[in-house]
């Protein structure tokens, strides 16, 4: 049994993949709890899908994907914010139109004759192709996210729990909502090379959903979410090795399965 668990990590590339998902779990798990408490799951999905043009342009230019992810996230966030405010479209409809347009633009660029054949990698990531440089970049961004969440913990809690009284408790809800979206953008940038535009949101939202089902108090939920994200990462890599399936998709499915199991256990 132990060998079944350790065999997948005999190679350097799976060891790097393991390190990458553990680093990402540190930031994505707790961030997911806040994203759910602020009811921003749709924003998480929108930003990760809308950054595809940035990833494609980075691939075309031959620069690191994390750079393209950062630019794509900024552009997507601006487009989503503008479209969401357009009263003719209406909030969610505007965001849906903007995300679809960005995703279509990304696919168009990726399928052009000049583009290298990497669309699959951009959509689903390349977890097993993680380099030490990728891990270092993800670690820096993950520490930024985890540190900021710890710094802002009380303000985030006051704003999410009781928006009407938050200011009298010293928290400005609009400011902390914005901070949370910025941290979401940073985490999305960190996770994009490994999990791609389509799968990374699973590592943010699913562990948070599971943790909020299982934990009765916020600190426990935040810690549990990091643990569940790490568990999804390890389980995903082990299953990927033994079943011969894509690593990123396996991690995303494990995260979703853990979220589903948590709902059943508490029902």
């Amino acid at each position, binding site marked *: 049994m132990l060998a079944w668990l350790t065999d997948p990590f005999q190679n350097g590339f799976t060891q790097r993949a393991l390190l990458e998902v553990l680093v990402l779990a540190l930031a994505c798990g707790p961030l997911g709890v806040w994203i759910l408490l602020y009811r921003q799951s749709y924003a998480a999905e929108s930003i990760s899908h809308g950054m595809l043009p940035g990833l494609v342009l980075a691939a075309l230019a031959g620069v690191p994907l994390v750079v393209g992810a950062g630019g794509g996230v900024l552009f997507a966030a601006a487009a989503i914010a503008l479209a969401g405010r357009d009263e003719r479209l209406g909030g969610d409809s505007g965001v849906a139109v903007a995300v679809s347009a960005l995703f279509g633009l990304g696919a168009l660029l990726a399928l052009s004759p000049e583009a290298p054949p990497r669309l699959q990698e951009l959509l689903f990531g390349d977890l097993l192709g993680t380099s030490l440089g990728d891990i270092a970049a993800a670690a820096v961004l993950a520490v930024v996210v985890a540190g900021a969440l710890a*710094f802002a913990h*009380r303000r985030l809690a006051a704003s*999410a*729990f*009781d928006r*009407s*009284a938050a200011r*009298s408790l010293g928290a400005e809800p609009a400011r902390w909502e914005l901070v949370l979206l910025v941290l979401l953008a940073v985490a999305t940038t960190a996770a994009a090379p490994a999990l791609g535009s389509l799968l990374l949101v699973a590592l943010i939202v699913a562990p948070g959903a599971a943790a909020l089902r299982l934990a009765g*108090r916020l600190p426990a939920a935040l810690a549990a979410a990091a643990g569940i994200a790490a568990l999804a990462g390890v389980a995903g890599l082990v299953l990927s090795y033994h079943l011969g399936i894509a690593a990123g998709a396996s991690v995303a499915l494990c995260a979703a399965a853990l979220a589903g199991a948590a709902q059943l256990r508490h029902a």
Partner: protein
Amino acid sequence: MSLVRTHDLAGGYTPGRDAIEGVSFALEAGEMAGILGPNGGGKTTLFRALLGELPQRRGTVELAGSPAYVPQTDHARLDFPVSALDVALMGAYRRTPFYRRLGRGERATAEAALERVGLADRARVRFGTLSGGQRQRVLIARALVQDARVLLLDEPLSGVDAPSAVRIESVLAELRGEGRALLVATHDVEQARRFERVLCLHRRQIAFGAPAEVLTAPVLQETYGDELVVLEGGRAAVNVGHHHH
């Protein structure tokens, strides 16, 4: 000494459309004022103006420190993973620097506040599983931890059970005795008669003063319009069947 003083306060949520206007009143230490008005009459807007949250605000507001705000209990998230003690501890957030952990002192203060509202034995219980009256008392405990000189309470007795109502009224009386100023939004005209001051509001200030002077039939009629129901014996009641927030 006035702990709250406004002069010609006006404002609203969009430019050019005032939700309240002409609000001028003062509240001394140890005074409790009832704010009466119909739904949409501006009670919550007045609180938001006093909290500095109103997007458009004119006139002057003078407050003795930051006020504590006790919203209606249905404004708080019931699915949020916090215990009653966690919520009470939120009252210490403003004065605690972000880099410092909440220590034993804050915890003892929060536990004492829960004790004061009769919920010491419910401190570890998840907030969302408490009854409406208990949740209201937890929010009052949070305001106690804030230790503000001015408290704004939005319909604190609305929909609470009888034991909670008794305890809340007792705590409010104690707070008055401690020299704090309390503004209480209410629909209960009879409750307002027991306060030192009453402010009648219907998008503008209709009247402010002692209950005996303010709670007259013409003032109540002007404040509530069609929502006012006159009971046998001339007592006034307010129809709040269509209450929305």
